[in-house]
């Protein structure tokens, strides 16, 4: 092994990278675009805030109080609809998927129900049959409508139950498994890091070996003092540098745009190193199995794309049918995803150690196989 040779190779690789716009795009811009697109899509879900248009036909203090209560629980951002407007037409015109209409007579009914006399409840005047009907004008085809209606119903159920004067029978206690509240984007970022490390090291290994072999560069190199070990080590080092660059880019954007809160520690580097070895190893094996550069690149895509979608990089495993979940658990990328989430999201060192050990074993086996299958001399 020669550090001089490895250094020379690294310089050539980095210069090539800096001059190759497509490589720059796929290493840096592509994961950032994914983060921005998915992060924005799921931003609403993270905030738990929906738009709600409310038409208050009662225009009393009590009805205003109800609207305020809806706003205060944080689930809704309220837009007021003028009482004079036809709410259905308004919903159509403004493409609003839900308008809640509070009927006129709301306050009167409330007063009768509670038996308020001069603002003070008086049991003698209470009318248990007094009620109001609120109307939902909604578009059933909109995905968020049913969620909004459900939130409203459960809110109204609490109000109704409170008015019954009886204590509730079933109460719920909520304990989050997480020490703090996490948002979707914070689960997504480690997945994107794992995905970009995989794509850059796997296709990087294929390019380095298959393409340069096919064009004859490796034949020339094999007549110089550079050894196969120097070559492989310098490539791995280069892939590691690229992985760190793309991870930094992803993290900077995630912090700047979405203010994510993630734990960045040595585990991140451990998982990047292991992923580079594992996927670099797979790339080297593919290069040997598929003799031509084009078929090696196609084989790399054939492995990478299903793995990306099946291993839970983009969405949780629970969303997939059982057999796909089983498949996911045999994919190396799944363990990189879970490992990164364990360390970055949950700060769970035990789980991170567990996943890193699994990927470590896999990476060792694949990388050793990769080294042994990489042809250097024209040995035939």
């Amino acid at each position, binding site marked *: 092994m020669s550090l001089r040779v490895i250094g020379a190779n690294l310089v050539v690789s980095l*210069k090539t990278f800096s001059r190759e716009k497509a490589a720059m795009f796929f290493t840096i811009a592509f994961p950032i675009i994914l983060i921005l697109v998915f992060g924005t899509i799921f931003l609403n879900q993270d905030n738990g805030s929906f738009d709600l248009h409310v038409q208050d036909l009662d225009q009393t203090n009590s009805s205003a109080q109800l609207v305020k209560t809806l706003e205060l629980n944080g689930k809704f951002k309220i837009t007021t609809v003028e009482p004079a407007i036809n709410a259905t037409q308004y919903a159509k015109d403004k493409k609003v998927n839900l308008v809640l209409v509070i009927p006129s007579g709301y306050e009167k009914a409330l007063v009768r129900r509670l038996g308020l006399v001069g603002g003070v409840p008086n049991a003698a005047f209470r009318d248990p049959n007094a009620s109001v009907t609120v109307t939902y004008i909604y578009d059933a085809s909109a995905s968020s409508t049913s969620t909004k209606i459900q939130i409203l119903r459960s809110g109204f159920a609490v109000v109704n139950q409170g008015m019954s004067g009886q204590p509730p029978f079933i109460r719920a206690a909520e304990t989050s498994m997480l020490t703090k509240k996490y948002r979707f984007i914070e689960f997504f970022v480690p997945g994107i890091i794992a995905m970009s490390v995989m794509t850059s090291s796997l296709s990087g290994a294929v390019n380095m070996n298959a393409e340069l072999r096919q064009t*004859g560069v490796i034949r020339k190199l094999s*007549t110089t003092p550079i050894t196969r070990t120097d070559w492989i080590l310098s490539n791995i080092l280069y892939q590691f540098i690229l992985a760190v660059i793309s991870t930094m880019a992803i993290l900077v954007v995630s912090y700047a745009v979405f203010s994510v809160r993630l734990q960045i520690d040595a585990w991140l580097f451990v998982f990047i190193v292991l992923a580079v070895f594992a996927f670099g190893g797979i790339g080297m094996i593919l290069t040997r199995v598929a003799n031509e550069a084009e078929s090696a690149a196609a084989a790399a895509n054939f492995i990478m794309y299903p793995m990306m979608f099946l291993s839970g990089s983009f969405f949780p495993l629970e969303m997939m049918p059982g057999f796909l979940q089983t498949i996911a658990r045999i994919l190396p990328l799944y363990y990189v995803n879970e490992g990164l989430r364990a360390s970055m999201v949950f700060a769970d060192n035990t789980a991170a150690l567990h996943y890193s050990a699994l990927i470590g074993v896999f990476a060792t086996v694949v990388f050793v196989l990769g080294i042994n299958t990489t042809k250097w001399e024209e040995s035939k």
Partner: protein
Amino acid sequence: MTTEPEHAIDVENLTKRYGDLLAVNDISFNVRTGEVFAFLGPNGAGKTTTVEIIETIRTPTSGTVRLLGMDVTTRKRDIVPRIGVLPQGFSSFDRITVRETIQYYARLFCCRNTDVDGLIELANLKDKSQEQFKNLSGGLKQRLGIALALVNDPEVVFLDEPTTGLDPRARREVWEVLLSLKKKGKTVFLTTHYMEEAELLADTVAIISKGKIIAMGSPDQLIERNANYLVLTLKTIDGAPFEIIKRMGFEPVHDNHRNIKVRVEHTDDLQKILNAMKDAGASPLSVDVRKPNLESVFLKLTGEALREGSVEGVLD
């Protein structure tokens, strides 16, 4: 004090098989230190296989090859720093400039004092030193490849088909670089299927066909030995001279341009033919006399052309 061995390369009974295919069939030869040695043969004759075995990047099936006195199968580490190679179909990193590429290969050989500018000048690439490899023409790429083969100031330089696929002008420009290399007194092992290239550059030519060396010597010796005749080409007005020459016992033929071609063994015969035509009042419009070249030698020895379409106008 050590003296340079007489032979830079010694090949004894070298055989290389690929399954059923016998690529190199029990060949033996040697290359003297300081000479330009050309391996001349058509595609698939075994040239590249042989040269790659000598360069240590392939292993022989049997036989021994010694390069600078060292066995190529066991001493790769010692041999590689002392040789320079332009492989067949040479290519390099697309996005790296000419100068950077030379610097990179120099680093691989640990040549801190490599004269990068000198190599750029030798390969006549001064104007292109900042150009990326992918933007170079075929001839420029080959010239860079030759410069790279020299970064470690090697004792033996291997050039595997340095001008294949180049247009005539680019080929001539590469030859200029090779001639300046020859002047430096390096031992050069050249493989080619262009006989002009072998004739121009080589001190010794080995003709290889179907894995066997079928003739070896200096270009002049080979022609002397195998094609010791002259070819007379006559441009005439009518067909009369053809009959005159035929009656004299020669075997004239018409070439594609309706010229008469006659093969003669001695210069005396030339005189006889021209006199006979003069006497018959049928003097030719023009006369051309040529010695055969290596192409003719190859054709005579193997009965096949070095390259497709290369025998036009050649009399066998």
